[in-house]
């Protein structure tokens, strides 16, 4: 059976890819599509990078794998907030699943993978600054080995630069665009070079790599990438910036070409994105709305931001911005679009009585859907509100927000305090859309087919099937039979295997009861307890 490459394009959307293919900018992708299968890939709700990629690599939904956002509560009864890491990813990953069946794996630039899991293979986590990437990779000698063996390897170029990434969210001066796009071209090439080096010198059966510049470019430069937003008569500056964007995607196309050559014809390649993209034109200051409705009280001295401030949340969470003794509901982080309801006895003694939870939540949902409106037009700003039972069902459900919002422009809420509830963006910025891409090509895959929508959760079982491995019985996704030829399906019967291997939970909802005792033992072992 075949080897597999997961060629991750963070945030890739057919809105952009089809346009670039039609313009002849991505000839390899065009050929890949012509000789493979394509589908819209439905993301998780909300379509956010950490829960989405975690779903792809586990075949489990966020309520099961435990990653709900970039920041999340440590436990249902805790007010402690954690930065997302591999500690929160409590479901088995596909890297481990293939290991258990005697195959090796390599994982590059996936979020929530730091510290790297100790798999049979190699892992360099994403979303880690260069200073820490060496310590947090696996094996621990990997980065030093690459420095010694791989010409041109530069760990600073490889790792995420958060100051540069902020520009994707808050905007950047036009003069910076060339350098900024160049930085991303260079970074993607670095990741490819690492993958190539490893595939040649430490081969694996499954390799996954995420090229995350797609997301960054689309956040900042969406008006130059969405063909529907191209002016009728674009000026020279527009053309110059669009050309920079095209350079980036030409490079991605070249990396795909090299990946195909490197992998050979007996490898199945899945091009996949964690979510799609679209344009956002406004900012909803959701905590201001909650304040207006009497659900939230700011702590005295909490500063209001300027109306056009595009930074949706402070550098770190600001629970301390709220007067929790007089707050019943609040949004904690921008990207999760989540609202937490404060319930007495859940995390502390503040909030509504537990017996009022259901009625309070129903009322809040109704008001969010029907009364959170554009002050100028009266149009509804929120198109959907999900409860956590609906979108985070599973053992980790209770760490998730009580409610999750979808906005009319698909944007992220701001959790900052403002003088107004709604502000127009000075210019359209890109934001996440629930429809991403899946394009597959390889042994047994149909050619030129377009199939119905698939879900992120389907990727892991399908990749395992392509590798000829059994599918763990408790994966929530399905093998996408429709992407394969009937002959291939006939010759390769699907095999169900044992359930996924349990991963020790962090201090999560269903953490083992003896965890505290384990901590004591670990502290003893480290020499911290006499």
């Amino acid at each position, binding site marked *: 059976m075949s080897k597999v490459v997961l060629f991750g394009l963070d945030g890739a959307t057919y809105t952009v890819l089809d346009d670039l293919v039609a313009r002849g900018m991505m000839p390899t992708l065009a050929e890949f599509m012509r000789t493979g299968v394509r589908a819209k890939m439905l993301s998780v709700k909300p379509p956010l990078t950490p829960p989405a990629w975690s779903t792809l690599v586990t075949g489990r939904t966020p309520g099961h794998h435990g990653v709900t956002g970039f920041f999340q509560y440590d436990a249902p009864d805790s007010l402690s907030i954690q930065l997302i890491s591999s500690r929160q990813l409590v479901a088995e990953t596909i890297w481990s699943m293939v290991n258990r069946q005697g195959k090796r794996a390599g994982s590059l630039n996936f979020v929530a993978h730091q510290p790297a899991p100790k798999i049979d293979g190699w892992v360099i986590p994403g979303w880690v600054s260069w200073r820490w990437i060496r310590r947090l990779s696996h094996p621990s000698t990997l980065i030093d080995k690459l420095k010694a063996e791989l010409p041109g390897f530069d760990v600073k170029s490889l790792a995420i630069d958060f100051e540069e990434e902020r520009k994707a969210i808050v905007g950047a001066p036009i003069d910076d665009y060339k350098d900024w796009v160049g930085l991303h071209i260079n970074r993607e090439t670095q990741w490819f070079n690492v993958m190539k080096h490893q595939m040649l010198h430490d081969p694996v059966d499954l390799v996954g790599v995420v090229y995350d510049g797609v997301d960054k470019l689309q956040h900042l430069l969406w008006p130059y990438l969405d063909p529907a937003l191209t002016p009728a008569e674009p000026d020279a500056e527009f053309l110059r910036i669009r050309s920079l964007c095209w350079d980036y995607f030409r490079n991605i196309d070249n990396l795909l070409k090299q990946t195909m050559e490197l992998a050979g014809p007996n490898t199945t390649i899945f091009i996949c994105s964690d979510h799609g993209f679209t344009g956002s034109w406004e900012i909803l200051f959701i905590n201001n709305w909650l304040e207006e409705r009497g659900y939230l009280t700011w702590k005295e001295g909490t500063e209001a931001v300027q109306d056009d401030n595009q930074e949706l949340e*402070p550098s770190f969470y600001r629970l301390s911005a709220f007067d929790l003794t007089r707050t019943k509901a609040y949004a904690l982080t921008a990207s999760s679009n989540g609202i937490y309801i404060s319930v007495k006895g859940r995390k502390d003694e503040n909030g509504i009585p537990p017996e009022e939870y259901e009625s309070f939540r129903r009322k809040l949902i109704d008001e969010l859907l029907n009364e959170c409106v554009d002050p100028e037009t009266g149009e509804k700003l929120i198109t959907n509100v999900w409860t956590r039972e609906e979108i985070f069902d599973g053992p980790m459900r209770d760490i998730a927000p009580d409610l999750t919002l979808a906005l009319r422009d698909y944007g992220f809420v701001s959790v900052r305090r403002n003088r107004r509830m709604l502000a127009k963006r000075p210019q359209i910025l890109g934001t996440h859309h629930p429809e991403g891409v899946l394009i597959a090509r390889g042994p047994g895959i149909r050619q030129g087919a377009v199939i119905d929508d698939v879900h992120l959760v389907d990727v892991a079982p399908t990749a395992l099937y392509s590798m000829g491995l059994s599918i763990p019985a408790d994966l929530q996704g399905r093998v996408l039979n429709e992407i394969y030829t009937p002959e291939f399906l006939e010759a390769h019967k699907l095999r169900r295997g044992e359930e996924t291997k349990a991963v020790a939970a962090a201090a999560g909802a269903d953490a083992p009861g003896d965890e505290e*005792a384990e*901590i*004591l033992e670990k502290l003893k072992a480290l020499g*911290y307890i*006499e």
Partner: protein
Amino acid sequence: MELLTRDKVRQDLIELLKDAREDWDHSINVTDETGIFNDLGFESIDAVGLSSSLEAHFDQSLPFPEFMTKVKEQNLKDITVGHLLDFLMANLRQSAERAAA
């Protein structure tokens, strides 16, 4: 109940911080007064890696975002090794006491 050895935690923390410096230079003299931004050249963006590294080393979750928020609210000019050590000791001790209870 004094169960934790501050010296051992300090020693491990300093080794970890030195390890993350650009040149991985272990000869630099780091004390409780050393600032991780001004003296060691870290940036606020290193919080993710620092947090994950500390959690991995001590094998427990740490409320790092809260720590960074408090630092911001107190308008500290820098986070010193001593600040980090206090944060670690408080959380490690809390875990140990919970476990021992």
